[in-house]
C-alpha cells in the first residue's frame, strides 16, 4: 500500500439554513476544498459522497453524480456511501483504499446532510431508521433513548454521574464558541446543562447533538504527489472501519462498542502508535455519553474512567489531550452525512496550525472517531503532519 495524504479540505458553516438546498451546500464545501488543494475538477479521478438520508430529508436520490456533476467533475466513478452517522467517515475510508491500492491518484470525498427542512419529530423518525426498525425502534425508541439507556447502564456499572455527562457539553460548547463555523456559539454552565429540558432520562437537551445543515470535503492523493498541490499535506497514518450489530439489544455489553475498539486497534497498528501518543482527537459526541465511552474504547483512559477524565478538564483546550476542539457534534453541529469528513477537516486545521482561537500547542498527531448508529459502524482515522 502507498502512503496517502489529504491535500485539500473545505467546509461550509454548520447551522440552520432555510435558503440552502443539499446540492448548494455540497458544492460550496467541494469548491472550497478544490481551491484549498489547488485541484481542478478535471483532475479528480474518483468521487465519493457520504450521505445518510437525502432521499428522506429532501426527496432526492442518486446523490453522488447529482453533486459531482455540479462541481464540474464529469465521467468518473461517483459513488454514494451510506453508513448512518458514519456515512462520510466510511466514504473517506473507501477513498483511502482506492488511493492506497494505486487504483486512482486524486480522489475526492464530500459529506453532506440537509436536515432542517423537516420538523423535529420527523427528523427523529428518519434518524431512527439507522437502528433496528423491526425491534428497538418499533418499541418506541429514539436514538436519544438508546444512548440514554447506554448512559444509565454506564452510571450503574461505573458510577458515572450527570455532572460527568454535562461536563462534556460544557467543554464542547466552550470550544464551539471559538469556532466561527459552529452551529452553536454559546458558552453554557454546568448548572444550565444539568437543568436542560429532559429528552430521555438521564439525558437532557444539552446532552444531545444538534440537527444541522452542512457539508464538508477533502481530497486525497498519494503522498509522493502531494507536493504538486500543497505545501501542507497531512498524512493518513492509520485508518480502519469496523462493524457490529445494528440493534443495541444484540450487544453483550452496551457500555463499550466493539466496532470502536476494533477500528481503533487496527488504526493504531497501521500508524505504529499507541493511544498514549495521540495528542488530540475529534470524537463522535452524538450524545455526551458517546464521547466518554469513545475515550475508553480508544484507550485514552481505562474503562469506566471517561467521566472523571473529562470532568477534571484533561480534555479541555488547555488540557493534556484536547477532545473536540471544533466544538464537536454538540456545538459545531451534526449534519449527519457531513460529520465524518468534517472531523477530518478539523484535524487538518489543527495539524496545519490554522485553527485560530482554538489552536492547541501540541497538534502534530490527531485521531478522528466517526460512529454510525448505536455502534454498528465505526471509522477511526489517525492523521499527522507529513
Amino acid at each position: 500500500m502507498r502512503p496517502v495524504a489529504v491535500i485539500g479540505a473545505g467546509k461550509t458553516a454548520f447551522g440552520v439554513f432555510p435558503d440552502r438546498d443539499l446540492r448548494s451546500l455540497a458544492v460550496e464545501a467541494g469548491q472550497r476544498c478544490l481551491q484549498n488543494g489547488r485541484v481542478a475538477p478535471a483532475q479528480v479521478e474518483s468521487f465519493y459522497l457520504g450521505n445518510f438520508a437525502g432521499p428522506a430529508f429532501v426527496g432526492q436520490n442518486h446523490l453522488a453524480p447529482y453533486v459531482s456533476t455540479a462541481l464540474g467533475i464529469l465521467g468518473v466513478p461517483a459513488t454514494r456511501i451510506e453508513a448512518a452517522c458514519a456515512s462520510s467517515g466510511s466514504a473517506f475510508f473507501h477513498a483511502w483504499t482506492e488511493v492506497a491500492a494505486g487504483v486512482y491518484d486524486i480522489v475526492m470525498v464530500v459529506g453532506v446532510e440537509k436536515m432542517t427542512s423537516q420538523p423535529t419529530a420527523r427528523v427523529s423518525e428518519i434518524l431512527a431508521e439507522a437502528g433496528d426498525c423491526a425491534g428497538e425502534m418499533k418499541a418506541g425508541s429514539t436514538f436519544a433513548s438508546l444512548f440514554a439507556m447506554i448512559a444509565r447502564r454506564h452510571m450503574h456499572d461505573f458510577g458515572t454521574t450527570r455532572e460527568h455527562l454535562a461536563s462534556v457539553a460544557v467543554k464542547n460548547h466552550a470550544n464551539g464558541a471559538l469556532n466561527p463555523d459552529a452551529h452553536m456559539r454559546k458558552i453554557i454552565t454546568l448548572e444550565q446543562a444539568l437543568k436542560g429540558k429532559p429528552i430521555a432520562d438521564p439525558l437532557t437537551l444539552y446532552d444531545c447533538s444538534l440537527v444541522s445543515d452542512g457539508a464538508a470535503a477533502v481530497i486525497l492523493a498519494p503522498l509522493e504527489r502531494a507536493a504538486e498541490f500543497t505545501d501542507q499535506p497531512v498524512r493518513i497514518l492509520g485508518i480502519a472501519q469496523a462493524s457490529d450489530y445494528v440493534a443495541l439489544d444484540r450487544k453483550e455489553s452496551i457500555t463499550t462498542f466493539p466496532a470502536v475498539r476494533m477500528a481503533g486497534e487496527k488504526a493504531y497498528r497501521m500508524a505504529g502508535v499507541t493511544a498514549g501518543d495521540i495528542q488530540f482527537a475529534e470524537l463522535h459526541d452524538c450524545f455526551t455519553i458517546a464521547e466518554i465511552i469513545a475515550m475508553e474504547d480508544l484507550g485514552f483512559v481505562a474503562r469506566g474512567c471517561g467521566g472523571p477524565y473529562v470532568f477534571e478538564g484533561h480534555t479541555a483546550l488547555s488540557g493534556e489531550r484536547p477532545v473536540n476542539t471544533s466544538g464537536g457534534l454538540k456545538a459545531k453541529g451534526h449534519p449527519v452525512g457531513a460529520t465524518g469528513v468534517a472531523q477530518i477537516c478539523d484535524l487538518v486545521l489543527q495539524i496545519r496550525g490554522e485553527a485560530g482561537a482554538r489552536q492547541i500547542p501540541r497538534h502534530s498527531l490527531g485521531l478522528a472517531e466517526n460512529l454510525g448508529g448505536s455502534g454498528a459502524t465505526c471509522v477511526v482515522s489517525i492523521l499527522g503532519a507529513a
Partner: protein
Amino acid sequence: MRAGTVYTETVIYSPPAAFANDAPYQTAIVSLEEGGRLTVRRAARGSAIFPEGVKA
C-alpha cells in the same frame, strides 16, 4: 409471558411522531431468563415505572 430482568431503562419525553400521544413513556432492555435481550415499552401513560430501576 416471558420473564426477565431490566438491564437498562429510560423515560422518553421527546418521542418520534408515531408515539407522540404516548409521551412520556418508558422503554427498557430486558435480559430474558431464556437468554437474549429484548427492547420493550411500557405502554400505559402515567403507570409506575420499573420501581427498582436498573438491576443487573
